[in-house]
Structures are given as structure tokens and as C-alpha cells.
């Protein structure tokens, strides 16, 4: 890495083993294994980045040279990354059960779930997708950092598909863990309820489109906070955008004084947890919003330096094929004091939305979709509705949160996508929350 006249150079090498099991209905559609070996070089010259990714890990010096040459084509300004102490460390995976548990045991568990789904009357078919991975990432920088991190990840998505008279309804369940296989076991009762709900949806009505008071369960509220606020907190959206910096000025009020939003890979044993990010910066726990006030944002070394703020250890790359960019880790709304009863008891007409299909954001506008929804009438949960898609505007909707429950739960399923890097392991969570005037698409 030395002798190239670059301001900064880093090299990452990565070895990954993935096992994949997919069922469609009764068919075990795919059992497969993937082994990956590759790496990348990133170089910084006068504020411009060169990036070279490869499978062939020979001739690293040539690759460094190419990355530096690319960076030099861009570099024009005097720029230094935010300072960090060089680190030398080797980090073992906390648990790596998925790689030691035999394929036959994984298959047995998935088949048990599949049988529960398929034996439910009116269920037409199922989808089960299970992945586990074992990854070793070696990182070295021209500043003297050398880190080896071993990471395990497991992810399960189950979907029950019901059909009748040409109508198709589906309900899904997503779970994940950092290598703890038990986290995806013991779901029999949940799977049974999920399959039954898919059937019940066949005869459920669709919500009428419009604005409602909504109550979100911890899983969906976690997706909400990720989409509605998490992405806007990623400093790479803000650091080169003066207008957005004015809007996202630290100290600005975004919500009620009870609202606290946190992101942090240093929160232990969750799917977005790690010791160092992909630039070798130690993980932190960051209050994005405290007491309703914007307190800080998520940074890479570059965005932190440009905005004169502290790096937060949020630069992540999904694999060696991509450069690290600012990402969330474990994002959640801190619990308040209200019980679920307190939250719904004074709602005359509203919607209770649970569990997720997905979510997305343009930064200002966001949508997130529930896989389960009920009308709330006179403070009580009433009839089941078809899945609803909810939408809002970040500058208005956070301020419309007027009740925060006491029952924080983290959801570890799914993954996050940004700039073509998907799905990145993250976790989201929240207690039950209530939002006034939330826009719902429907009939």
C-alpha cells in the first residue's frame, strides 16, 4: 500500500460460505452451496476515490496502482478523512451454529414448518427460503490498521399462499440471527397462525383509501423508523447537499419530547451488530433523535470529516464487490410508558397494522407495507383487513407520533437495500406506536 502517493489506501479480502435451502410448496426446490473468494482495494487521492474489486487475489500491488490512478483522475481538493486510531485485532464470530448443524437437521426443521403451512385448508402453496453464511473479512489500511472479523448470519423467510376463486393472498414471516440457529426454531405456533391468516385474508375487505389514526406493532414500527427516519440520518445523503444540511440541522425538533431514536452496531447480539465497520472504525451507539430533537447522524470517515462531526462506525459494504457506504445497523425507537390498551382505547376509528411486507423511501416520502391489518373501532380491535400500504412525509409524520408503548421488540428478519447493495443484515425495532393522520392506499 506504500509508495503510491495516495492519501489513503485500504485492502479488503473476503471468504464466504453460504448454504441455501428453498421450498416451493411440497418441492424442495433448491439445496445449494456457494463459496466466494475475493477482495477490493480503495484509494483516496485529494478527495477522489478509486475502487477496484477482483476475485484473483494475486498481484495486489497492480490493483492498488489502478485504484490510485483512478482516484488521481478525480482528486482536486485538499481533503483528509476523519482521524481514527490504528487498530490491530482479530474478532471471532460470537456463534456460528449454522455452519456446524448438518443439512439434514436444517431440512427437518423447515419441513416441519412447511407441513404446518400446507396442511392448512385453502392454502395453495408455500415459499420457504433459508440462507446461512459464514464470512471472514480481513481489512488492512495504509494507516496501520489490520482487522480480521469472522461473522455468521442466518435468515429465514416463510410465506403461506392461499387461493380461492382466482384470488390470491399471502402472509409472510421473517427471522434472522447472527449465527444462533435456535432463533429460527420453535416457531410452530406462529407458522400455524400465519397460514390461517393467509386463508382469512381471502374473505377480508380492503381498507378505504385515506388518512387514518394508525397503531403500528413493534415489527412494523421498526420498519417505519428505518424508512421514515433512518435513511435520512445517513450522512452521505446530506454531506454534499447544502439545502438538506439546513433542513437536517442538529438541534431541530422532529417529534414529541418522548421520542428517542437510536442506531448502533455496538448494541450487542443483534443482526446489525459488529465490533468494527468496513473502514475499521469501532462501532458506536448513536442517538439520532433524543427528546424529539435531532442529535446526531450516521457517518463514514469521509462524511464525518466533511461535516466536521464524529465518525460513528456506520460504513458498511455488503461484499467485496462494493465500496463501503453509510448504512444503518440496529435501529429502534426507545420504549415509553404506555400499554397497548392505553394506546388504542381512545381511538374511535383507526387501523392497527402489524408485521411487514416491505418499505422504501425517497428521503422525504416513504412507504411501508403491513402484512396484517385490522380496523380499530371504539377502542377495540375489529375486523381483519387486506394488507395495507402506508405512506408519509418525514417532516410531518414523526411529529404525528402521539403515543409510544412500553413493549420494545427487535425484528431480525429481512435486510436493507441501498445503491444496489442488498440485502444487508440489519435489525429494526420499536414498541407499539400511534401515528395521527397517516395516509393509506386502498379502494
Amino acid at each position, binding site marked *: 500500500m506504500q509508495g503510491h502517493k495516495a492519501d489513503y489506501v485500504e485492502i479488503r479480502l473476503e471468504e464466504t460460505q453460504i448454504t441455501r*435451502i*428453498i421450498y*416451493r410448496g411440497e418441492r*424442495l*426446490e*433448491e*439445496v*445449494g*452451496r456457494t*463459496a*466466494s*473468494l*475475493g477482495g477490493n482495494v480503495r484509494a483516496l487521492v485529494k478527495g*477522489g*476515490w*478509486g*475502487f*477496484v*474489486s477482483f*476475485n*484473483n487475489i494475486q498481484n495486489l500491488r497492480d490493483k492498488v496502482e*489502478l*485504484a490510485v490512478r*483512478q*482516484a488521481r483522475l*478525480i482528486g482536486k481538493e485538499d481533503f483528509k478523512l476523519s482521524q481514527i486510531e490504528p487498530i490491530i485485532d482479530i474478532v471471532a464470530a460470537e456463534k456460528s451454529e449454522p455452519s456446524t448443524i448438518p*443439512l439434514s437437521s436444517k431440512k427437518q426443521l423447515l419441513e416441519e414448518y412447511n407441513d404446518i403451512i400446507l396442511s392448512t385448508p385453502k392454502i*395453495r*402453496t408455500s415459499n420457504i427460503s433459508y440462507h446461512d453464511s459464514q464470512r471472514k473479512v480481513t481489512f488492512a489500511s495504509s494507516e496501520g490498521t489490520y482487522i480480521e472479523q469472522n461473522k455468521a448470519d442466518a435468515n429465514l423467510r416463510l410465506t403461506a*399462499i392461499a*387461493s380461492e376463486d*382466482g384470488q*390470491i393472498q*399471502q402472509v409472510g414471516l421473517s427471522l434472522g440471527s447472527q449465527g444462533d440457529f435456535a432463533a429460527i426454531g420453535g416457531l410452530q405456533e406462529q407458522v400455524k397462525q400465519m397460514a390461517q391468516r393467509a386463508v382469512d385474508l381471502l374473505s377480508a375487505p380492503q381498507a378505504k*383509501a*385515506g*388518512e387514518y389514526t394508525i397503531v403500528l406493532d413493534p415489527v412494523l414500527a421498526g420498519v417505519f423508523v428505518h424508512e421514515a427516519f433512518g435513511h435520512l440520518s445517513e450522512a452521505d445523503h446530506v454531506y*454534499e447537499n447544502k*439545502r*438538506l444540511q439546513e433542513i437536517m440541522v442538529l438541534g431541530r425538533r422532529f417529534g414529541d419530547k418522548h421520542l428517542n431514536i437510536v442506531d448502533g452496531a455496538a448494541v450487542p447480539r443483534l443482526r446489525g451488530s459488529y465490533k468494527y465497520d468496513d473502514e475499521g472504525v469501532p462501532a458506536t451507539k448513536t442517538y439520532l433523535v433524543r427528546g424529539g430533537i435531532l442529535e446526531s447522524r450516521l457517518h463514514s470517515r469521509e462524511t464525518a470529516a466533511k461535516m466536521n462531526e464524529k465518525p460513528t462506525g456506520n460504513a458498511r459494504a455488503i461484499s467485496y*464487490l462494493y*465500496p463501503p457506504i453509510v448504512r444503518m445497523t440496529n435501529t429502534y425507537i426507545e420504549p415509553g410508558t404506555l400499554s397497548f390498551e392505553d394506546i388504542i382505547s381512545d381511538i374511535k376509528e383507526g387501523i392497527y397494522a402489524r408485521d411487514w411486507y*416491505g418499505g*422504501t423511501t*425517497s*428521503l422525504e*416520502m*416513504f*412507504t411501508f407495507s403491513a402484512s396484517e391489518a385490522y380496523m380499530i373501532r371504539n377502542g377495540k380491535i375489529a375486523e381483519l383487513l*387486506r*394488507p*395495507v*400500504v402506508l*405512506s408519509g*412525509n418525514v*417532516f410531518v409524520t414523526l411529529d404525528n407520533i402521539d403515543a409510544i408503548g412500553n413493549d420494545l421488540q427487535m425484528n431480525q428478519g429481512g435486510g436493507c437495500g441501498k445503491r444496489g447493495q442488498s440485502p444487508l443484515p440489519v435489525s429494526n425495532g420499536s414498541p407499539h406506536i400511534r401515528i395521527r393522520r397517516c*395516509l393509506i*392506499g*386502498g*379502494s
Partner: protein
Amino acid sequence: MEEILSKAKKLAEQAEVFQVSSKVTPVHFEANLLKQIESKENVSTALRLIKGGKIGFAQANGYIEPETLVEMAAETYPFGMPAKFDFPNPKVYPKIETFDQQIDNVTVEEMVNLGEQLISSIKQHTPDILCEVSATKGTISVNIINSQGGEASYSKSFFNLSLEGVLIKDEDMLFVGDSYSSCHPVLDLRPLAEEIIKQLELAKRNVIISTKQMPVIFTPNGVASSLLAPLVSAFNGKLVFDGASPLKGKLGEQVFDKKFCLHDDATLPYQVASYPSDDEGVSSQRTPLVDNGVVSHFLYDLQTAALANTQSTGNGSRHGGLPTPSPSSLIIDKGDTHFWDMVKDITEGLIVEFLIGAEQGNTLNGDFSGNVLLGYKVEKGEITGRVKDTMVSGNVYQVLKQIEAIGHETRWVEGFLSTPCLYCTGLSVATKMV
């Protein structure tokens, strides 16, 4: 590849090795400035084998000992799905043009220039806009060999130029964007610049729309972001076979409007989604999916076709695992109505350019529901401005059952959909109350 195949043949009744190598050079601009130049090389090798009638599978990204890859695949076949097909015999593939030598001659400096010119032409129109631009060139080479003597190999070049712009006024953000892809270098930035400027012009002022059922014109980008996901899953032969597509049992039936024609075509010259052979060595073809509203075919790979007792349509596609049916290029036929005649016809309605989140509902049932990221209100036959805080919901089977009119021009969107504007009625539109 030969070594892997010969080792696998010793173990299994049939085997197939698939290898794809790529070299991609993206140039990125952020906030109007050149930010990053990348160079990415990748090789991946996949082994599929059939032993005891069951399928085993393993893939390696990067170098792997042939022995190791064979062992990994051998570990999986005892659990694998019963194979219903044989790997293809030797055949003569159609000659499909997918490689333009000119791609190699485009320098990084030219790509940087292209990006700079594009940004400066947009800034000339709207000085305060912040643009993210990517210019990407690449080449891919695909090779397949199998134990039945089958052999397929081809190269593809591609180029993509894309822009996303954001204009912030107070707390209002306006997003515009578009992209063009081809196997030829995309060195003429004018079509992209003209499209972006058209979006900026139409979105100059914000207007309020009603919450009610109303007609909607989906532009080509609007078709892609609203209606495409449910259609793609509906024609997937695997979902049809499983009964997870509403089109199961509807072959030969009138499901869509008589004006609606849709086909899949992997044979179009210099289109980025074209190929002579699919990812399991089946010849590419043009497959009609909807003829004048009548469902005429579904898309298949070898295994799914065998299960459904039909033939592969050459749509076996790999996404890091076993081949599965996926569209190549989807083409919606053009109609005879001018865009402005559609607009003139509307008393109150909406033009949808980009919908976000639409693919995140129950797409299997054809449902879509999303936030209008970019859309314009039509009032008494004229476009009056941009709408926001607005959701559009519908079901493709209802929306496309009675199409009011189809545009007389088509264009390519995202490199794999060619579509005209679609003028539809009775969409549910909901907006925030002021």
C-alpha cells in the same frame, strides 16, 4: 471448466458447468461532482449435477479447486429435487447480436466527459439541482458445457447512463430521473437530458389533487414502477404451476383488454436483456404472453417446463442459485393514441411517472399501491402541475382489463421493458387533507 465437468461426470449421471466472467467500469458523480471511478472483475462458476435422479448444486465466486466444487455439489444432491429433464444436447443457437466492440474503445475520460456534459445541460435549465450520475460500461462472457455434449458461449457488451436529480425548495423535495441502456455505447446524452428537462418543466409548481377514483396515464417509467412487478410474477411458469398466479388455468382466455399485447423477446439485436442461449443452454426465442388480451403463454426453464408438461421457453435465468424462469426483454405493443390526446380527454386525472413502494404489497394477486414520487395532475385536458403526498392503488387485472387508450410510441425502460403510455381508468387516488 472441462476439468470440473470431467470430475463431476465420474460421480454423477449428468453434469453441467456454467461460467460467467464480467468486467465492469462504473463512473459515479455525486452532488454534480465526479466522485468515484470503479473497476470490477468477477468470475463465477456453477456446477449442477444429477445423481440418482436428484439435482445437486454448488457455485464458486472466484477461484476454487475443481475437486472442492464437485464435493460441495455432491453434498447437496442427496437432499435435492428430482430432476425431470436432461441437459440439452449439442445444438445450433440463433445468431443474436449482443456485443459491440466499440465498448472497449470508450475511455474512462470520455465517460467522465459524458457525465460532466449531462450535468451541465441539466444545470443550465435548473441551476439549483443536485445530480447523481452514473456512466457504466461492461462486458460479460457466458460459457456453458454439459455431459450431453451441449455447449453454449457468447459475449455481451453493455453501457448504461443514468441520472437522478433532486431539487430542494424549503422542505419540498422534487425527484427527477431516467436512464438509458444498450449493448452499444450510449454516448448521446440528449434523449436523457430532454426527458429530465421535460420532467422538471411539468413539475414546476405543486398542485392539490382530490381523493377519489380517477383516470391515470402511466408513462413508460410509470408502467415499470407500478404495473410491472405483478405482471412479471403472473407469467412466471413456476408460480403458474404452483397456483400462485391468478393466470393459472387461464391459457386461451380473454383476461386483459383486446388492445393489450405483451411478449417476451430475448432475440432483439443489441438489447441488454438479449442472449442466444439462456443460462442452461436452451435457445432464446420470442414468446407471446398476451395476444389481443388473450393469455397465450408463460415463461419456463427446463425443470419447470417438465413439471408443467411443456417446453422451456429459453427463460432459465440464474440469480446466484439454480436456474429459474425470468423474463428477458418484455415488450408491450404500441397503440394509436398520442399522449396529448390522452391528456385532452381527462377532466380530472393523474399522470404517474414514478411510484415508490408499489411492488411491496400483494403483487401475486396483482395488487399495487404506492406513493407518487413524480406525477402530474391533469385538469380539463391540461397538465397543471406536480402532485405529492399522494397514493395510487389498483389491481393490474382490473386496470388492464379495460384500457382507455395505448400510446402510439414506445420506449425502453430499465433496459428490459419496452412500453408505450397506458391510459387507464378507475384508479384509487388518495391524498393528504390540507
